[in-house]
């Protein structure tokens, strides 16, 4: 996932059916926009070179996603569509065969072959290259838990090129949705020229996607031009995208109001309560993919993996009035959680057994806490750790701890940690010694992305060291199943989580942003970003 701290905004949550109606089909004839004019969109200066496997934040991600086409692409609603791949097939969900469609080329004219993918992935997984997106290769055989292969190995052993347009992937364990994951930027191909001088390539990247990079004026803007040779699922309706870099979302919003900027994927806090009524802009505010949870590590005294711990977790969850906080602090731009994923996922479920624990009930909370106190009296205080570095956490953390204090009649306090770097270090070294803020943005459009890598025993982002065999079994079954069966297994896995509450879901952040009045086609994708290629100036 992209770093939760810096995420700007957006996406959308329609169902699989909705997407066919709105996104791809209509050829834009009804919109009457100007297909030659480029649009200007807010972004931030990329923090890493523009190499797909080294990009893990939104500034670089915006550009990478428009410059490249992966094996699959996603519709704005989160449906997987074949893009460079003609087919991705497997009989056992472990051994996958990828066949590429003919005719794909990089914008330098060289063909996109099986080697373009395998070499790019091997580059990304080579620990010597220290790529930030290496984690995505973790499911493939021949990588370690962090997605890299052993130092000195020639590449990922689970990858094999059969011919120019075919390669195979062997996984460590069955994953029925593996093809759905392949639209993430870490899986994008690289042209041969990239490997000659990756440093130079990161400045002047060459992709195979809907746009090409015309110029990158550091700290100012990146100009993207439409790629006339692109014939994939995301054909641009505009003449290009200029990503203008803003350090302050306030300035970007002002520019959208005055029409200088066409799209901002972020709304400054000062405008949250007014932007939907602002007539000088077009506003979007709908369920998004990023969730917020409070993780309580098992190792915390009174919150262990036993009856007392479970009662206390339930009591805290019941003591939090999510609705009031989303309305008053977030001005209606967040939705109270109903499960461990997000309503923006096409396969999310509203009816997971046990999710009534997310409903506010002060009396029930007190009762549960008192029951736990009978087992072992609670003295001391409940603390909630968070990074207080201007990322907008302070207000809601205070509200949550206030509610816990008031409704359970215990000591509860925010535990501010000054920087994100220190916060993450305390968590990864397991030294934080309190409950702490966690959040997740999915890597591909499925509720599954919120479960396995966060709550699986020993999983890479399992910051609370949660481990439950029942959950692991259910999630393993879900990974190997498809369709309805898969959804049932995921629901079972979530039901286990609702019993144990390794983390307490709070809310999901909506996708919200603004477009200038003179544009049409503004919408958010499941990835919490505007579908830039669909926006046109009138």
């Amino acid at each position, binding site marked *: 996932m992209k770093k939760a701290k810096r995420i700007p905004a957006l996406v959308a949550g329609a169902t699989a059916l909705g997407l066919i109606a709105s996104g791809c089909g209509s050829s834009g004839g009804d919109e009457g926009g100007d297909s030659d004019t480029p649009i200007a969109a807010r972004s931030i200066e990329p*923090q890493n070179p523009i190499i797909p496997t080294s990009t*893990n934040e939104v500034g670089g991600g915006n550009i990478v996603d428009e410059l490249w086409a992966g094996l699959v692409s996603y519709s704005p609603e989160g449906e997987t569509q074949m893009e460079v791949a003609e087919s991705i097939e497997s009989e056992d969900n472990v051994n996958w065969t990828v066949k590429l469609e003919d005719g794909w080329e990089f914008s330098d004219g060289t063909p996109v072959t099986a080697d373009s993918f395998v070499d790019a992935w091997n580059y990304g997984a080579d620990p010597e290259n220290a790529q930030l997106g290496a984690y995505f290769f973790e499911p493939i055989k021949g990588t370690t838990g962090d997605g890299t292969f052993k130092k000195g190995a020639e590449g990922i052993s689970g990858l094999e090129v059969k011919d120019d347009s075919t390669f195979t992937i062997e996984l460590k364990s069955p994953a029925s949705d593996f093809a759905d994951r392949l639209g993430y930027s870490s899986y994008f191909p690289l042209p041969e020229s990239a490997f000659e001088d990756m440093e130079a390539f990161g400045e002047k990247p060459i992709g195979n996607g809907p746009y090409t990079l015309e110029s990158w004026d*550091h*700290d100012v803007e990146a100009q993207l031009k439409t790629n006339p040779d692109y014939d994939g699922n995301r054909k641009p309706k505009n003449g290009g995208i200029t990503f203008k870099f803003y350090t302050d979302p*306030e*300035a970007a919003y002002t520019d959208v109001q005055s029409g200088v900027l066409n799209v901002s994927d972020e709304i400054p806090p000062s405008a949250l309560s007014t932007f939907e009524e602002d007539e000088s802009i077009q506003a979007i505010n709908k369920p998004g993919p990023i969730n917020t949870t409070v993780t309580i590590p098992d190792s915390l005294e009174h919150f262990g993996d036993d009856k007392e711990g479970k009662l206390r977790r339930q009591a805290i969850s019941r003591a939090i009035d999510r609705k009031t906080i989303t309305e008053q602090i977030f001005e209606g731009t967040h939705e109270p959680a109903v499960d461990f994923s997000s309503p923006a996922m096409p396969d999310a479920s509203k009816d997971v057994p046990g999710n009534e624990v997310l409903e506010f009930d002060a009396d029930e909370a007190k009762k549960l806490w008192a029951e736990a106190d009978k087992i072992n009296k609670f003295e001391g205080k409940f603390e909630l750790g968070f990074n207080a570095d201007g990322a907008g956490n302070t207000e809601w953390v205070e509200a949550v701890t206030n509610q816990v204090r008031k409704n359970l009649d215990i000591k509860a306090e925010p535990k501010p940690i000054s920087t*994100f770097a220190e916060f*993450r270090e305390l968590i*990864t070294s397991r030294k934080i010694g309190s409950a702490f803020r966690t959040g*997740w943005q999915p890597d591909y459009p499925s509720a599954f992305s919120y479960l396995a890598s966060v709550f699986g025993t020993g999983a890479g982002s399992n910051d609370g060291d949660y481990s439950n065999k029942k959950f692991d079994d259910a999630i393993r079954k879900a990974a190997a199943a498809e369709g309805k069966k898969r959804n049932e297994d995921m629901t079972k896995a979530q039901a286990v989580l609702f019993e144990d509450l390794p983390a307490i879901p709070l809310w999901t952040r909506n996708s919200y942003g603004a477009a200038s009045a003179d544009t049409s086609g503004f919408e958010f994708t499941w990835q919490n970003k505007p579908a830039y290629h669909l926006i046109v100036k009138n």
Partner: protein
Amino acid sequence: MWGYIARRLLQTIPVVLGATLLIYAMVFLQPGDPIVALFGEKPVSETARAQIEAQYHLDQPFIVQWLLFLKGAMVGDFGLSYSGQPVSDLIARALPVTFQLAFMALVIEAVLGVIAGFYAGLRRGKIFDSTMLVVSLIVIAIPIFVLGFTMQLVFGVQLGWVPPTVGGNVTFTNLVLPAVVLGLVSFAYVLRLTRTSVIENLGADHVRTALAHGVPRTQVNRRHVLRNSMIPVVTYLGADLGTLMGGAVVTEGIFNINGIGNLAYQAILRGENPTVVSVVTVMVLIYVVMSLLVDLLYAALDPRIRYV
């Protein structure tokens, strides 16, 4: 005088050494692991960690990091930012923008401040003087971001006289509004400083003597009152130029200007220590040079001051 300049320049060496050492120490003592933050919520491979640590010398004790930095800085090599660009390029891009903005703000505050302060001082207690005192008090009392947002809304969005933000189009017209906002607070100080100084000098012996000799009032005011009143003002303006260069973070944010203040601020947020240290070093150098220039200006204003 050249000997004086040479000595002053030599003095900058310990200043820069001390400042960078201090910054390095602070950055080093700062809790948190920048590499963990770089990977977000994803696990970090040990080999990758070693690779990044070696690249940015993070595995070295801080005194070694500092010496390596100094070695590079001597030849203008400030290392690479996390995005793989030479930090010297980042600075070279941001510095001209900041210079332009700071000088425009300086000219605005100096010209308006001195003129208004001079007349207010000459007409002490009259309506112009009282008005200026109230205006400057208001300007000093209002936080700069309030001034910035209000002027941006009025002149940029509603009236449309200037674009609301600057971004990549760094032109004179685009910078006028931010420069006014940036210079406004200092304008108030310059005004008050000039006024007080003028009032003081009006009562000075040499002014009375000149008047008694029959020198015309306007000439006395210009040659003796104004010129002598400039010494504290020039001191202030010199120090202020340094502040304008480094301290324009708020204004640069409001108007989306890619100056040196914004560069430093962003680097701090991202935990990009090499960039932070380099930018601050450049700021220290600017400050030192500015204060040298101010000291030299004294001699031009006051013949009693001589540098040997």
